[in-house]
């Protein structure tokens, strides 16, 4: 079979890398900007149904309002709350009931939960 050769012989061309590098850099910048490197921080909450039938010992009802905290109806400070609760708890993981009045916001409740967690009291149930 005859071979035809039209024009000068072409050398095998290597495709240019530049456009690909451009696209890859664009993708890189996009993902660098869009990525969230820090994970969310969370606070565990206990659904009230988990606490049914488990409650034992003296009443431990903490009431949160904008005016301050009450433990079983008596005013208590935020810093004094864990110490005031410990004598009322039969066990370290006993449930404490936290009740918010109409004026309290979520931030105030979270502050109390934080303070209790620092005092080693983690089983706090939010009641309606």
């Amino acid at each position: 079979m005859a071979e035809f050769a039209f024009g000068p012989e072409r050398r095998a061309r290597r495709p240019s890398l530049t456009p690909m590098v451009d696209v890859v850099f664009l993708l890189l910048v996009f993902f660098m900007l869009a990525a969230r490197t820090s994970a969310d921080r969370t606070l565990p909450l206990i659904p009230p149904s988990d606490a049914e039938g488990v409650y034992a010992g003296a009443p431990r009802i903490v009431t949160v309002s904008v005016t301050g905290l009450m433990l079983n109806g008596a005013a208590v400070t935020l810093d004094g709350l864990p110490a005031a609760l410990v004598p009322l708890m039969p066990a370290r993981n006993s449930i404490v009931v936290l009740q918010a009045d109409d004026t309290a916001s979520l931030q105030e409740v979270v502050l109390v939960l934080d303070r209790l967690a620092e005092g080693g009291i983690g089983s706090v149930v939010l009641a309606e």
Partner: protein
Amino acid sequence: MDFSDGRTRRDRSSVVPMINIVFLLLIFFLLSATVETLPPFEISPPESRAEAPPETPDTLFIGADGTLAFGEVQGDAVFDAIAQSGLDRLLLRADRELPARRIAAILARCGEVGIASIRLVVERG
């Protein structure tokens, strides 16, 4: 005197290591990125010292006025959607100004539809 050996064209192979590194970085960011579901309304989480990581990406959004959103569903229908999804863990992203009474009611409803573990997203205080 001419010491050149005729290779006057810039050597293109020096680009290849750079491309390798860039591809590595690209793959790293692709894998490390978390696909985030954006809240349908503005939410500023409460400040807290808690540091626990989230257990699940399934998020129930609660606005400052108590508006609920879960996936595409909004309003009280979210609890039906949660019940149908069969989830037992939930992440709450609630506004710090939300009345605390409301969150207690929402926790109770979540417990009723089969959620056993709930975590609230917080910000570093």
